[in-house]
């Protein structure tokens, strides 16, 4: 004869337990199920989508009347429990007395109502069940309804997003410094807040609620700082409290939750408990995965199988359409923790893995959670990730079985040159390491390896790794320079988000370790600021490298080169005559025709710069910016004007591009070319952006290189009109300006962000393309001008070009 099993609480935990039990042994028990709500078991996790209107209540019912009937469950829904009589083994309820052999308490939890005046006013509700949802939906039906959510955790934010989607005016009040502080670190919390604000949800952090105001029902929420937030409803989402009432009055052991052992047994051997109402080993669980584990254990315990609940590792996802967020494990800052961080501000992506002893102990992902399962699996299984650490953050596609890069470095002879700029070979670096240089900075200081262009930094680090073995830790994310641990992308993000508009402000707010930076961070900051705030920021000449400050290239003897622009490589007899005259007048020792289709005058004295510029200006010649991290040249062929193979007016297009783009500052130099046919005489396929004209239109390709590295361009798009070429070129350059790290050429930047992303941003997303072009034009309204004409103004003569003092006479006396 079956035993009598009585269950108090018809939620998800007891529901899953019943499924398990009926699966294992359908006949052992006669089940009576009490529920406080009029419904049976439904998927409470999906209340948010119901609230948002993405789902109906019917869609989230787990067990319907048929299911209960099929399993002979005696349903006693909408019936309150009066008390448990442990001695008689009876449950006394509103409508009678029920005997039990085994009793399960699964009463779940209730919303925690913060103890302030007004918390009991009508209109102040929790967010636990379908009736709460109904109340909220009624309020949302009103026009201009206002909702205030207290609590910026998982539940509160889901409610906020859903109510916003229903057309309400929504404010989230959160006590802590950033949203979801239990699951997210400040950086991810910041991105989340930004996204919610973009959707029109007001977010107030560090919000201390002082009182809830209203006469007959709620009218507003008052904060301690005096701010008043009008509200038609207030949703309490500041946490949950285990519902322990029947257990307490029955005299069971109750701590914060109902105490259970590993078998889910309470202090009474015939009474069990599971779900959010229990406390196991000091922990209360609010997420579904551990509750299901409890259900499994309890079902087995009930049929006397061995089973034990083990505290699981849990993860969190936010169920708000369009917001991808994942969190698991620990993520606090502790000395023993190392971390690997990937940020892509333009795409709003943030991934952070927290490591200890080569194991993942925490995961925070925002914006792209596709690899979360892969990371979570490694986390749960405690896998040693040292072999894949280098590419770990990029997920399974990248961190797979790559060949060991160290093996190649180890195999190099000592005579192999590592640093081409400073002629440092591997043996020199190794002896410096043996002399105590145990990190990159020390090797750099002792040998100068990687101290110039920095391209060999990775190689130098690998030599360090090979030489020092486990004693060398490759820095996870490199700071911009030794003045800060923040990366270039971090700093760009801070400038933007905190609206910092001077170098001093950035250094202050970002905690620079030096008083006024160094030659590597100052030019970068100057660029980031002028790129972000073109109309407000004033260029800092003192943070410019000499060439950009003096608008000429310094040569080895301290003289300069002067190079006038030749639009699209075209010139005229008048221009050539002016160049020849200037060359004679200023005794220019060297005249060179460059690879960018222009004429370079070399060996000019600094003092002569303003006057030679002035002479060239008079002939209509302007600066060629041959010295700048900016647009250099647009190389062309003569196209349909003369060439028998030309398919389009490549010269004309090149000139148009150059006239639009000139004067713009970019993270590194930018060179373009337009070839009139696929014979490609302008060598467009090794430029930062190249255009090949064909009969049917134009092939635009990007990210080529023909300097220290050689790389062919990759196809961006094929378009039919000149205007599209121009639009794509501007958008590409603006995207590069806004997202690349200073001194990364476009090919490096594209390799980092991926060509596909670039295509999505400027080819597929027309709106974004237009926005990029607009921002470029705003910047060009300031910068599309000739610096030579500017620098020859009289005030520059006295303040910059002239000597501070001339003591040649005095000293001679």
């Amino acid at each position, binding site marked *: 004869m079956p035993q009598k099993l009585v269950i108090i609480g018809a939620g998800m935990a007891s529901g899953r337990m019943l499924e398990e039990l009926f699966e294992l042994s359908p006949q052992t028990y006669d089940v009576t199920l009490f529920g406080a709500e009029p419904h049976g078991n439904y998927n409470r996790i999906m209340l948010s989508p119901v609230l948002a209107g993405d789902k109906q209540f019917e869609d989230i019912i787990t067990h319907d009347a048929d299911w209960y009937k099929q399993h002979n469950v005696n349903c006693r829904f909408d019936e309150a429990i009066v008390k448990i009589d442990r001695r008689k083994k009876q449950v006394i309820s509103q409508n009678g007395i029920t005997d039990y052999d085994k009793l399960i308490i699964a009463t779940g939890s209730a919303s925690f109502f913060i103890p302030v005046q007004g918390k009991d006013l009508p209109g102040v509700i929790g967010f636990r069940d379908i009736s709460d949802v109904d109340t909220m939906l009624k309020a949302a039906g009103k026009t201009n309804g206002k909702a205030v959510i207290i609590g910026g955790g998982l539940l509160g934010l889901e409610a906020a997003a859903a109510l916003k989607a229903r057309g309400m005016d929504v404010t989230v009040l959160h006590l802590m410094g950033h949203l979801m502080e239990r699951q997210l670190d400040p950086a991810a919390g910041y991105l989340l807040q930004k996204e919610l604000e973009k959707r029109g949800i007001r977010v107030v952090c560090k919000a201390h609620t002082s009182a809830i105001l209203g006469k007959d029902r709620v009218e507003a929420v008052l904060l301690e700082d005096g701010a008043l937030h009008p509200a038609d409803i207030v949703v309490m989402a500041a946490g949950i409290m285990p519902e322990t009432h029947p257990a307490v009055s029955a005299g069971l052991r109750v701590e914060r939750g109902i105490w259970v052992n590993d078998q889910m047994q309470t202090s009474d051997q015939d009474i069990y408990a599971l779900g959010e109402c229990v406390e196991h080993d000091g922990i209360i669980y609010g997420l579904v995965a551990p509750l299901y584990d409890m259900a499994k254990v309890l079902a087995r315990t009930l049929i006397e199988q061995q089973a034990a609940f083990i505290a699981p590792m849990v993860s969190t996802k936010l169920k708000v359409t369009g917001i991808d967020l994942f969190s698991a494990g620990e993520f606090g800052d502790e000395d023993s923790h190392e971390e690997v961080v990937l940020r892509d501000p333009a795409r709003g992506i943030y991934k952070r893995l927290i490591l200890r002893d080569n194991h993942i102990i925490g995961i925070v992902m925002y914006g792209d959670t596709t690899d979360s399962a892969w990371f979570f699996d490694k986390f749960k299984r405690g896998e040693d990730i040292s072999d894949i650490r280098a590419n770990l953050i990029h997920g399974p596609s990248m961190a797979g079985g790559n060949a060991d890069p160290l093996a190649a470095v180890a195999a190099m002879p000592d005579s192999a040159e590592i640093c081409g700029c400073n002629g440092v070979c591997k043996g020199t670096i190794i002896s410096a390491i043996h002399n105590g240089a145990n990190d990159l900075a020390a090797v750099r200081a002792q040998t100068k390896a990687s101290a110039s262009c920095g391209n060999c930094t990775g190689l130098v680090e690998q030599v360090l790794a090979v030489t020092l073995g486990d004693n060398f830790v490759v820095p996870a994310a490199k700071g911009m320079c030794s003045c800060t641990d923040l990366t270039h992308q971090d700093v760009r993000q801070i400038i933007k988000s905190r609206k910092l508009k001077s170098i001093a402000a950035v250094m202050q707010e970002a905690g620079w370790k030096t008083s*006024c*930076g160094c*030659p590597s961070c100052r030019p970068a900051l100057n660029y980031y600021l002028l790129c972000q705030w073109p109309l407000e920021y004033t260029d800092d*000449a003192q943070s410019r490298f000499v060439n950009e400050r003096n608008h000429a290239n310094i040569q*080895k003897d301290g003289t300069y080169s002067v190079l006038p622009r030749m639009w699209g490589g075209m010139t005229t007899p008048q221009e050539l005559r002016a160049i020849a005259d200037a060359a004679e007048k200023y005794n220019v020792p060297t005249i060179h025709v460059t690879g960018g289709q222009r004429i370079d005058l070399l060996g000019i004295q600094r003092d002569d710069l303003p006057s030679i510029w002035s002479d060239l200006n008079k002939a209509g010649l302007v600066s060629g910016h041959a010295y700048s991290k900016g647009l250099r040249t647009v190389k062309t062929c003569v196209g349909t004007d003369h060439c028998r193979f030309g398919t389009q007016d490549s010269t004309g297009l090149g000139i148009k591009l150059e006239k639009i783009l000139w004067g713009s500052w970019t993270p590194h130099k930018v060179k373009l070319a337009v070839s009139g046919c696929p014979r490609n005489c302008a060598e467009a396929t090794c430029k930062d952006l190249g255009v090949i004209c064909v009969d049917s239109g134009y092939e635009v390709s990007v990210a080529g290189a023909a300097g220290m590295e050689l790389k062919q361009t990759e196809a961006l798009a094929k378009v039919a009109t000149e205007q599209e070429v121009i639009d794509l070129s501007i958008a590409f350059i603006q995207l590069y300006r806004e997202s690349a790290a200073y001194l990364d050429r476009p090919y490096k930047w594209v390799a980092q962000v991926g060509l596909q992303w670039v295509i999505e941003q400027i080819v597929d997303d027309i709106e974004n393309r237009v926005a990029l072009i607009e921002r470029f034009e705003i910047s060009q309204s300031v910068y599309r001008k000739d610096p030579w004409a500017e620098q020859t103004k009289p005030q520059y003569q006295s303040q910059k070009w002239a000597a*501070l*003092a001339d*003591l040649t006479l*005095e*000293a001679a006396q």
Partner: protein
Amino acid sequence: MTNWIDIAALSDIPKRGGRVVKTTSGCIAVFRTQNDQVFALDDACPHKKGPLSEGIVHGNAVTCPLHNWVIDLETGSAKGADEGQVNTYQIKVENGRLLLDLNQLKTRSAA
């Protein structure tokens, strides 16, 4: 013995910048730091004679524009792995004016 002569106003040099004073035996670079300290050094890097006056000034140092040697403004010595030193000259600010010791300059041109 010193012979201070007024060469210019402090404000003639931008903060974190340098300018030159011409003398018969070459240029002297005069620097003004972020904190308005001033320094005078030969305007020729000990490495390859690069014009230090055109370098980026950071803290009490300047980085040569030619090959990034970092020169300590107080001592004239190269910092880090590089070795070399340039002459430094006495300079001071009084009432917003820059004063340079002419006698030291004369010694230099005689040497």
